[in-house]
Structures are given as structure tokens and as C-alpha cells.
């Protein structure tokens, strides 16, 4: 029974983090799936959300900036606005340039953001990170606290999904798609390409920050690892591509699926390592478990290849609405 309960708690945490990834992927879907904007710095916006929420909601402490003790919702809104503002500045500089510049710029910005969070110790407590971030419902007994948090994540996923779905089917979404499909023709149809792109970029980045805020409350702890590109940029891209870019349902399914696989590989690989006979282990490199982390990335890459062979436009390809 205890073992079962342990699995149950593990399952809740798996689905909760899967849900947070679903929010991130929905954000990327607005940028890439709708607007065709290549954001290679998702981790940066995610981290802005995570750190803003952490700093704004924690109790006073001298380890880092904080003590504002803001309500969750206010903190999340501020986090989103901060992320949106940064996206706006990047957009102002890059959106009028050729599209590859945006990719380069976002990689750079995300890296700068990571370094700032790592090195501005007075504000962020450096690599030791911010702990004791409050978590909604943490007073409830186990497992109800986790279930209640999961419910919030679920509601946010649903809300973002519904708003995004509505936007995609709307004239706004139509213009976004048109711009992605053919710039000169959209221009000739009187659309201000820069404005629309900016909207997609800013809104997507705000949603990413919301996911970051949720992550920081969920873990009750945040350190510069949230801005590592592997788990916060690369994986999100894989999620969207596997699920089907341009399709909100696909973004959500892709996020959960890849998150389960990603967590599963960790479980499988560590089980394998633990069960290697000691005499065999002496032939293998000593830092095996560290190296296995890279095997995971390799496996995800391989899986992506296999998926793309079978589903070239993702599991749920983009569908334009047929007007009745």
C-alpha cells in the first residue's frame, strides 16, 4: 500500500509538471505555430517568470531580494508583464530583421538572463537559489495539497487553451497565419506585419512566464537551473513539434507525452545503472550517471526523428477552421 501511495504521489507530480510544460508549449505554439517566430530562448522567459514570482511572494530574508509577500495572482501578473516587456524590447529590435536574427537574439538574451540570475547574488542568492517560495494550499494534508495544486495547473492549462483556441480561430489568428504563410501578400492585404508579430511574440512570452511562476511555486525553490536550455527550451520545442505545431491540442498532448517519456527515460536509465553487476561496472567509466544524462538527450533526439518520420506535421497537424 505504501508503495502504491508513493507511485500515486509520483504520478501527481508527473502530471503537474507535465501541465506546466503544457502551458510553456502553448506559449511557444502562439509564437511558432501561429506566427512562425523562432524563439530559441524559451528558458529565459520561463526563468523571468519563475524568479519574479519567487522574489515577489517570499518572506523577508537577507539572502536575496524579496519580502514583498504579494498575493499569488498579483505576482504572476507582474511576472507576465515583466516577461512581456522584455519580449517587446527584443521584438522592437529583431522582428523587422530577417527571421533567423530572432533565433540568434533570443538565444543570446536567454543566456544573459541566466547569467544575471546566477551572478546577481544580492537579488537571487546566486546558484544556491531562492528557497521557501510559498505554495498555494501547502497547509493542506498530503496528498490534498498536491492535488489542489494540480487542479490549479489544470485550470490554467484549460484557460490558456481556450483563450488561445479562440484567438487561433479568430480573424486575429487568420491574419497571423496569413503573415506566416506569405508576408508580401499579407502586406498587400493591408496588414501591419510588425504589429501582429509583436503581439504573438509578447503574448507567447507572457504565457511562458506564467509557466515559470507556476514552476517556482510548485517546487517551492528556484535556482538558475530553470534557465538551462536543455529542459526549458529544447524539450519544449520537441514537445510542440511532436504534438503538432499550430495545433493547441497537439501542443498539450505533445507536452505531456514528451514529459512522460523524458521522465521515464530517467527512471529506466537509473534503474539500469543500479542493476549493473559490480564487476562489470569497474569496466565502465566512473561518471556513468552523469554521462547518462546525455544519453537521455540523445534518446529524445532519436525519438524526435522517429516521430517526424511517422507524423511529419506532428500527432495533431494544424487544421484551419472551415467556416460554415
Amino acid at each position: 500500500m505504501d508503495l502504491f501511495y508513493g507511485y500515486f504521489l509520483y504520478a501527481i507530480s508527473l502530471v503537474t509538471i507535465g501541465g506546466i510544460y503544457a502551458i510553456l508549449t502553448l506559449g511557444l505554439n502562439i509564437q511558432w505555430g501561429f506566427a512562425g517566430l523562432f524563439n530559441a530562448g524559451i528558458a529565459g522567459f520561463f526563468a523571468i517568470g519563475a524568479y519574479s514570482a519567487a522574489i515577489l511572494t517570499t518572506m523577508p530574508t537577507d539572502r536575496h531580494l524579496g519580502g514583498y509577500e504579494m498575493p499569488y495572482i498579483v505576482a504572476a501578473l507582474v511576472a507576465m508583464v515583466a516577461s512581456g516587456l522584455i519580449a517587446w524590447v527584443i521584438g522592437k529590435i529583431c522582428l523587422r530583421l530577417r527571421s533567423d536574427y530572432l533565433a540568434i537574439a533570443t538565444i543570446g538574451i536567454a543566456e544573459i538572463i541566466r547569467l544575471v540570475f546566477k551572478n546577481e547574488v544580492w537579488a537571487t542568492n546566486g546558484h544556491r537559489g531562492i528557497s521557501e517560495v510559498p505554495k498555494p494550499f501547502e497547509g493542506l494534508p498530503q496528498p490534498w495539497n498536491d492535488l489542489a495544486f494540480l487542479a490549479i495547473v489544470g485550470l490554467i492549462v484549460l484557460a490558456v487553451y481556450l483563450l488561445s483556441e479562440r484567438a487561433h480561430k479568430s480573424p486575429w489568428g487568420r491574419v497571423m497565419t496569413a503573415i506566416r504563410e506569405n508576408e508580401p501578400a499579407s502586406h498587400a492585404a493591408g496588414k501591419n506585419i510588425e504589429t501582429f508579430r509583436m503581439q504573438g511574440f509578447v503574448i507567447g512570452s507572457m504565457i511562458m512566464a506564467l509557466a515559470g511562476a507556476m514552476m517556482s511555486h510548485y517546487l517551492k525553490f528556484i535556482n538558475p537551473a530553470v534557465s538551462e536550455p536543455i529542459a526549458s527550451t529544447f524539450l519544449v520545442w520537441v514537445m510542440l513539434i511532436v504534438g503538432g505545431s499550430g495545433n493547441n491540442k497537439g501542443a498539450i498532448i505533445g507536452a505531456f507525452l514528451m514529459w512522460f517519456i523524458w521522465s521515464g527515460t530517467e527512471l529506466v536509465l537509473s534503474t539500469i545503472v543500479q542493476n549493473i553487476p559490480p564487476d562489470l561496472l569497474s569496466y565502465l567509466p566512473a561518471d556513468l550517471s552523469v554521462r547518462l544524462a546525455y544519453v537521455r538527450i540523445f534518446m529524445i533526439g532519436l525519438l524526435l526523428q522517429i516521430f517526424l518520420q511517422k507524423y511529419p506535421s506532428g500527432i495533431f497537424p494544424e487544421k484551419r477552421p472551415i467556416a460554415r
Partner: protein
Amino acid sequence: MLTVEDLTMQFGGVKAVNKCSFTINEGTITGLIGPNGAGKTTTFNLIAGALKPTSGKIYFQGQDITGKATHQLFHQGLVRTFQIPHEFARMTVLENLMVVPPNQPGEAIWNNWLMPKKVFDREEEVKARAEDTLDFLQITHLRDEYAGNLSGGQKKLLELGRTMMTDAKLVLLDEPGAGVNPTLILKIRDMIARLRDERGYTFCLIEHDMDMISSLCDPVIVLAEGTVLMEGDIHDIRQNKAVIDAYLGGGAA
């Protein structure tokens, strides 16, 4: 309605348009003809704001529009089509038309969440207009097809259809008949005439199909090597030795 003054466009060493000056009068269907590479499409790109001229001026309804952005000109009533069709490939044919009309409240994202009724009402109008246009072009059966799957000629029709989705003043048509079958060309011809008569559009029409030019256009401007070689009535143009040498060839007269 539109005046072009000493317009010049230089690409590296090539002067695609070279001190070109002409006027398009309101209510006319002005033909723009000339050999391949004469600079006709480039002239359109300059007028429509897709390119910024090296030098020269463009006036539209008395206002200097040189270097103005394409989308701004659209809202002033200056609309263009492309020689190579520019469809929105992964959107349906109906959507390709519905995207065009101005004043769509649903293009502001928040209106879709906050004022769905207002968005819906306008959407119905836009859809009705798009369906009328499909009807007019006789491609209603392609309504829900992805535009990328259309044939070359069907894409040309769609290109034309987009100009009918707004209340344009001046429409620049770049070879609307190229690659379209003869009966449809006749239809397009009638449609252009009707749009001029019924909606008061002014047209500037690039075509290599001389039947279409002679039945529709007055006056006709002949471009060669980026400048106006001759301008006038199609009958005079057909008699002109320079035009025959440069473009029409001996048999055309």
C-alpha cells in the same frame, strides 16, 4: 489619380526602372505593356510600396506616397496583385479572401475574448462577401480547399478575388490572365470592366495578351528598358514603328 515622376529603381548595376513618368487618370483602365524585363512589375512594386525607389516621386490622389508602406497604401485604396500568385497556401480559399477586408474588429485579439458578438457580426459580413466573390469567380466548389492545392490558373483567380474584398480606388493587376484558360480570360475581362463601371475602380493592367489590352485599355503605356516608350490609344500604339520593333513584332499591326 496616380502620377509617377522620374521614377528610378537601380538594382546593383541594372536600372530596372529609369526616369519613368506617367499618369493614370481616374476611371480609366490603363494598360502597361512592354517586353519581358521592361520594368513593369518593378514599377508596380514601387507604386505599391514593396520597394523604395532610388529616386523619383509617386503621387496618389494628390498626395506624395513615395516610400509609404504597402499596408498603409492598402487602407488608402491602393491595391495590387502579384504576377506570381501569392496565395496563403495552408489556408482555405475562403479564408484567403476573408483575411483581406479592412475594419475587422476581430483582428484585435482582445475583441475576440471581450466582444465576441461584434466580431461575429462583422465576420458574417466578411464571409458573405467572400462567398459572393467566389461565386463571381465561379470557384465556389474550391471554397474549403487549401489554396496551396489550387492549379496555377485558379491561384490567379484567387489573386484577383482578393482585390474584390476591399473598396479599392486603384487596382494594380499584374498579368491577371497569364496561365488562365481562354473562356476565363474573357470572364476576367468582363469582370474588370464591370468593377470599373459598377464600383468605380480605376485599374492599371499589365498584360501580354494583346486582345485583352485592346479590348479593355485606354490609354496604353508602353515601357521599354525602364522608361516610357510611348503612351496613347492602342490603335496608335499598334502603328508605332518603335513599339513594333521593341515589343509587338511585325505581325501585330
